[in-house]
Each structure stands twice: as structure tokens, then as C-alpha cells.
């Protein structure tokens, strides 16, 4: 394991002394994967010049003509040439079993010689070692923010013998080098690229994962992938066994929501809301198309965006009321009991027409009007 260690140390020093300026990529050292710049990873980002890769292009451009006519953007070809599987075989990207592969002697030599992180090193036919060093990678193309020059050079230098994509680790001596930049790992983990919406990772929790008081973590929706059957079962188990670790109630509580006149049910996770108001707005959004009576053709629904207040009026006026079925099987109006109690007893939700809900206690109805 010593060669890599040596290499790593060297990297540390080299990185400390010569930050990304060497690479000429305009990367900040602490960007683990340079991701903050390329977080806008959509097609528009890939503007930069593939021209210099034309020499590589021609061979491979034909090979991968699987794309649609009209979709042959130059960028595509560029990337594809970079992936050149033929040439991939030549170079040892794989540091795993140098001896067995029989293709790594050169890489080992390179390792010892110095795995500098700088961009220039990729020109030296350097290939990575046991996970501690990475050369630049084609994703730099997508570095939307960086100057156009860098991707070019990246493209060129990227294949020491065209060994395919390697990941750059600018200042990426993270590994053992806690001493160098203690905050790196934290930043590293913080600046993950989000493809799009939908991720609510609490960054501080990641960096402070050893700290004693994690704030209420915003959960990533639907993660980890555990079947709802299992989640429900475990939730009930833990309640039964009194295994209270300060865990606030069941992990996820899906209840079915039906609406008079709607062709099918939806499901909501009650634990994602903390007040009746939140639940109510979520349901309004979910069933808005039905309320409007526009659940026919595509594109018809939702062309106008209903103002929330208008919808609220619909739901809370004489049209619809929200009811739920409790543990005993009785249908009650939503809003009667404190929220936590409601979550504990609600088995099913139903959006009924106001006229159907007349049978429920009038005092409760009035109360629900007030609270909602």
C-alpha cells in the first residue's frame, strides 16, 4: 500500500502549493467534484468546443451512430469518442489488481512518479491508482461556468492514451489528509450535484454526521428504498415493543384518499405534514383536476393554474368536505381532534360532497370550518 500513500502525500503537497490554477480550469479547490459549477447539468451546458477532438472523433463518430437523425450534436460525438472502448482496454483505469491484470506496471510507475492532480498530469499517461488519484474527466465539459478553454484542454489531455474518463480530484487528497483541509469532506459532500428538484438533504447533517444533535433531518422523499409494507409493519412493531428511541412516531404512514367522483384513489403519507393546513393544501393540489371536472383529455387539465384560494373555497364551501375513517371504522370530519391524535387514528381519507357529510355531527362541522 505504500506507493499509493506516497502518491497521496505528494498530492497533498502539490495541491496545497498549487491549487487549481495549474489546471487552468478555474476550479476551486474545495469542489470535490467541481460540481457546483456543473450542477446545471442540462444540455445547454455542453456548449464547449469539441473541435479539438475531431481527430479522435472521426473514428468513433461512425461507431456510435445509434442516435436519432437530427440529434447528432457535436457534443455527443465528442463525448462518445472519449469513451472509445477500444482504447479503453489499453489503459489501466482499474487499479484493483495490478498484478493480475498485467496491465498496470506503467500505472504503478506513474503512481510512484507522482500522481499530481493538476490537469497537466493527465497528459503524462498517468492513470489512477487504488482509488486515491484521479485524472481529469470529460465531465469537465459540462462545467457550465468555466471558461471554454478548459474543456478543450481537458478533452485533449484526458486520455493518456485515451484511457477513458477519469475523475478529477482537484485538491482531492481528501482521503487520509484530514489535516490538510478538514472542511473538505464536508464541502465535498455538500456540493453534490442535484440533477433536479426533489432532494432535501440537510447538508449540515452530512458533514456533522458524528455530531450529537442532528437537527430534524429533512428526508429525501422515498429513500431509502424500503417497501411500504415493511415500513408499516416495523412502525407498528416498534410501537408495540415500546422501543421508543425518541423517534417521533411511525416512519411513514400512507393512507388512501378517495374523492367522490374521482376514478381512482391516491395515497398520502401523513407523516410528511404537521398541520391540517398542510394536509389540506396538499390534497387540494392532488385533486384539483377532479374538482374542476377536467380529468378528461391530456393537456386540458391544469392549463389554467387555479389560485389556491379559489380551490380552498371549493373545498371548504358547500362543495366538498374532508372526512376520515378512524380505527373504529367510523367516518369523522377532519379537524376535530389534535393533529397528532388524528395521525394516530386516521386509517383512510375521503373527500365527500358537503351534502353527504350532513350526517356527521354539526358541531364538529362547524369546528372544522373554523379550524380550516
Amino acid at each position, binding site marked *: 500500500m505504500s506507493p499509493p500513500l506516497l502518491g497521496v502525500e505528494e498530492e497533498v503537497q502539490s495541491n496545497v502549493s498549487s491549487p487549481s490554477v495549474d489546471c487552468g480550469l478555474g476550479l476551486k479547490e474545495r469542489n470535490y467534484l467541481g460540481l457546483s459549477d456543473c450542477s446545471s447539468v442540462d444540455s445547454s451546458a455542453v456548449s464547449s468546443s469539441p473541435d479539438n477532438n475531431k481527430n479522435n472523433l472521426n473514428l468513433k463518430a461512425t461507431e456510435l451512430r445509434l442516435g436519432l437523425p437530427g440529434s447528432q450534436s457535436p457534443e455527443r460525438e465528442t463525448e462518445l469518442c472519449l469513451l472509445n472502448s477500444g482504447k479503453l482496454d489499453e489503459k489501466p483505469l482499474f487499479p484493483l489488481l495490478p498484478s493480475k491484470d498485467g496491465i498496470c506496471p506503467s500505472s504503478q510507475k506513474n503512481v510512484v512518479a507522482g500522481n499530481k492532480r493538476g490537469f497537466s498530469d493527465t497528459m503524462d499517461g498517468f492513470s489512477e491508482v487504488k482509488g486515491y488519484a484521479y485524472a481529469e474527466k470529460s465531465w469537465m465539459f*459540462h462545467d457550465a461556468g468555466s471558461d471554454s478553454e478548459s474543456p478543450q484542454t481537458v478533452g485533449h489531455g484526458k486520455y493518456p492514451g485515451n484511457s477513458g474518463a477519469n475523475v478529477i480530484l482537484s485538491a482531492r487528497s481528501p482521503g487520509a489528509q484530514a489535516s490538510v483541509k478538514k472542511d473538505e469532506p464536508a464541502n465535498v459532500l455538500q456540493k453534490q450535484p442535484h440533477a433536479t428538484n426533489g432532494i432535501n438533504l440537510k447538508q449540515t447533517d452530512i458533514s456533522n454526521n458524528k455530531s450529537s444533535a442532528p437537527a430534524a433531518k429533512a428526508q429525501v422523499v422515498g*429513500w431509502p428504498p424500503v417497501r411500504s409494507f415493511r415500513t408499516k409493519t416495523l412502525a407498528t412493531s416498534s410501537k408495540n415493543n415500546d422501543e421508543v428511541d425518541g423517534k417521533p412516531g411511525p416512519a411513514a404512514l400512507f393512507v388512501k384518499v378517495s374523492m367522490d367522483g374521482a376514478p381512482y384513489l391516491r395515497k398520502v403519507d401523513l407523516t410528511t405534514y404537521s398541520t391540517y393546513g398542510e394536509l389540506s393544501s396538499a390534497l387540494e393540489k392532488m385533486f384539483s383536476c377532479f374538482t374542476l371536472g377536467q*380529468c378528461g383529455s391530456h393537456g386540458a387539465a391544469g392549463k389554467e393554474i387555479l389560485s389556491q384560494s379559489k380551490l380552498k373555497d371549493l373545498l371548504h364551501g358547500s362543495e366538498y368536505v374532508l372526512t376520515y375513517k378512524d380505527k373504529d371504522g367510523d367516518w369523522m370530519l377532519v379537524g376535530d381532534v389534535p393533529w397528532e391524535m388524528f395521525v394516530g387514528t386516521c386509517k383512510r381519507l375521503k373527500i365527500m360532497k358537503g351534502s353527504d357529510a350532513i350526517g356527521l355531527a354539526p358541531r364538529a362541522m362547524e369546528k372544522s370550518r373554523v379550524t380550516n
Partner: protein
Amino acid sequence: MRKKMACSLPDEVLEHVFSFIRSDKDRNAVSVVCKSWYEMERWCRRRLFIGNCYAVSPRMVIRRFPEVRSIELKGKPHFADYNWVPDGWGGYVLPWIVEMVGAYPWLEEIRLKRMVVTDECLEHIAKSFKNFKVLVLFSCEGFSTDGLAAIAASCKNLRELDLRESDVDDLGGHWLSHFPETYTSLVSLNISCLGSDEVSLSALERLVGRCTNLRTLRLNRAVPLDKIAYILRRAPQLVDFGTGTYSADLQTDVFSNLAGAFYSCKELRSLSGFWDVVPAYLPAIYPVCSRLTSLNLSYATIQSPDLIKLLRHCPSLQRLLVLDYIEDSGLEALSSSCKDLQELRVFPSDPFGVERNVSLTELGLVSVCLACPKLQSVLYFCRQMSNAALVTIAQNRPNLTRFRLCIIEPRTADYLTLEPLDVGFGAIVEHCKDLRRLSLSGLLTDRVFEYIGRYAKKLEMLSVAFAGESDLGLHHVLSGCESLRKLEIRDSPFGDKALLANSAKLETMRSLWMSSCSVSFGTCKLLGQKMSRLNVEVIDECGPPDSRPDVCPVNKLYIYRSVAGPRFDMPPFVWTMDEDYALRDS
């Protein structure tokens, strides 16, 4: 009708030979040899597997295969299991049932996975298929105990009723009592998913008593522990048994009764259930442990010491499902006690908790992989992993065929080096040459996909979440994985270029799911319009995708190959991109 070719075998001979060919792949291969073989094969195909119910229409199936006796259909995408597919998406089996009622009056077996089954469907089945024998509803929904009652009442030849993990509406009515007293042919019954009050115990006991061929019985949680002994004594021939709740106040007579009942089950090879376990009752199963090959303790909230004691009695164990309460120490014990282990699944006891609640790390998995030479299939939830561990696993267990690792916190790096886990997973795909299924997690760059594209030539299913950095990652997979059939991706920065460049590949796969990625609406439209044999469906609950610019990414995308054209049973939040889309929409 059937022409005899000069130098071919007579039809009767062909038919006889084909009857020995059971696997779908072989059948499909046979059918493309020549026209006469195609004809012969299609008339004698009895068993069908349709991995995506929307890939073909019922009529097309019936037209080609007129004499089917057994059909298996799958509906929703796999990610529906985790609630990532909104309700109402589709997967309705009724159209199939309706067509088959007319075309296959002698249908015997229906197996469905992730489909919407209504009571009406069940009633059709009960009334129309006179020789109906097997109903398996795996992770299905939409039906109630009324539908089950119809099945029970009418299917005189029913052998198997398996409702595993389905969502059944309890309407009361004691559906089990609808099995007539004359009915004795039950071989397999799995009602473990049913909620509390959906089973009448006395009806169950009578049923078990008169069905002497019963081999599999999986009870639901409502069946109390003290009833198990009675049931087991009525069915000592059981091979596969699932308990109900395994908890009661400890009483010696109950215990010894239970132990005696287990002792009498000499054929028992598989145990499951074990909800709410009271550890003191575990030794009651010791009499059968030495013969056990499969043990599902994944609902049992018992701690490592009890698990270790139990596992020491199970040297023949091949399959173990367990919660992470087993901890590294328990897995260590497992690795020394159960050398025949082939499949291990470790589930999280507290998946949504922020802090670690058990001492389960990568070391547990490594110890099992090192010591169990037959281990092929792994599903492991943990909170830390290292490249070194993965490399060790890969080097020592090249016979892995399924490797699903879920590091609970998204994008968790190698905890030792803080590197991405590319190298580790790369080792897995490089060494495990027969790997068919892989689920990734942790911090991963495009590089891991490069490795996958290069090495994972037998990979059929890949699950990706919070991984990769650019389209290159997706491109590596689509261009390199020759055997890929199903690809499911969430929250990864893969977008248009890779899809467009590999659009033809999509026709060689069953399906592709991408959610919270970077695929633009424009690309979806393009794909849908150009690729006539692909259904490109955009799922967006926020409103029609064309209310936003074309470059905006779509929320969820599901692409699957189909010869049936676009479907028409979509809810309002699903849009099919095809040639007509633009026309319809304007």
C-alpha cells in the same frame, strides 16, 4: 392447415419434442427457426410470461397463442414498490381477464405482480375458469376480501392462493369460510399480508385440517401464537410455514406444546412470519432448525444474541432474511454456522432515523462473503461502506449474481478514504462475471458507470440513485451493458444526450425509469415521436409538461418497448409522447 415439409419431422413428433422445452427463452428461440416451427410452437405453448403488461395487448397474445394454460404478468415499474409511482398510474389487469375469459376457458394459473386487481377481476376468474388452480398476487392492490370470497367459493380445483405483500381491503365477511366443506385441494396458502381481522381462525383451522396436501401455509399477523401448535399438528406435512405474531406471555405449557408441534413437522424447510417476537419462544423452533433451508426473520425485532443462538442451530440454512439487529457480531456467527448460505438480505430496522441504532457495518457483510462459499445473492442496508470492503467481497465472491447495496445516507463516500465508491463497485462488476442484478448507492461518479459498461456484460437489471455526474455515466451503461433489460434511475444528473445517442438500445430493453434526472421535455417528445416501438411516458403531477419550456426537465420518465402502441388507460398526470402528442395537445 399444417403443411408437412419434405424433410421435417411430423407434427406430432415436433409437438412432443417441444413439450419438453419449458423455458421461455428456449421457446422463443424455437419459434423463430422456421415458419412451421413457429406455427407448431405457438399452438402448443402453454405458459406465458409477460414482463410488462403494456408491451403487448391481450388480443395480440391470444391471437398468437391460442392454448395457454398459465400466464404471468407484471404491471407497474419496480420503483412503485417504494411509492415512487403515483397511484392511478395503471397496471390494470381487468382488460386481460376479460379477454382471457373468452379465449382461454381452460386457463389454470394467473400470476400477477404489481398490478391493479379489482374484485370484478376476481369474480370473473372465479366464474369463468373451470379448472382454475393457481392465483398469485404479488404486491398487487385494488381488491378486497369480497373478491377473495368469490375465489374461495367457486374455484373447486384451487391449489394455490398467494397474496404476498398485496394491499387488500378488509370488508369483513370471513372470506375463508367461503371455501366449501368439500374443498380439499389446497396446496399453498399465503395470507401474510392481510390485516388484523380478515381471517376467521376457526375457518382456517378447518381448512387446514381437511386439506391434507397443504405444503405451504403463511399466516398473517392476527393469528396468535397459541394457535400455531393446533394448526401445525393438523398439518405436519408442511414444508413452508409462516407464523403469525410470535408473542405471548411465557407459559411452559404453551411453549412445550409449540415445541412439540414443531417437532412433528418433519418436512419443514422454510419458516417466516415472526412478527413481534418474544425471544423466549424462539427455542420452540429448534427441533426443525437443523433441516431449515430458508428463514425469514425480517420482521422479527430480536437482538443479536438471540439471533446468534438461533443461527447456531441452522447449519443447512441457504436463505436468510433478517433485520440489522443482527449486527456485525451476528453476521460473523452466521458465517461460521451456515456454510451453505446462498442468499442474505439484511433490512434496516430504522431506515429513516438519522443516527445509527445498531452496530452493523460493512464488516458484517465482508465476513459473510469471506466465509460462505456459495453466497450468490445479497441485499444489504448499512450506513457505511469502503472501497476496500467491496474489493474484498468482489475478489472472494466472484460467484455473486445479485448484489444490492443500500447505504442509507445518499452519496456517502468511502468512510475510510472519503473517496467515491467507484472502485469498489467496479471491482464487483469486474470480478463477478455472472452478475445479473446490481443496485448502487453511496458517492459515485461517472467512473463507476464506465466500469459497469465495460465489465457487467451479463447485467440485466441496474438500480441507480444519487449517482453519477453527467450523461457520460448513462451512456457508459447504455452502450456497454449488453444484457441490460431494466434500468431504473433516480436523482442522478443524466440527461438528453445519453438517451438520444442510445435510443436504439432502449428497444432492446424492457424498460427505463428515470425520475428527478435531467431529461428535458423536448427530448422526451423527440424520442416518442421518432421511436414508434417505444412508449415514452412522462409522469408529472404538477401539471402538463408542455406548460413549461421544452428544456425543462421532466419529473418522472418511463420508457418501455411495446408492440401495442401507446396505452389509453393513463391518469391525467401521465402523458404519452408520440406523434400525436403535439396534435392532441394543441
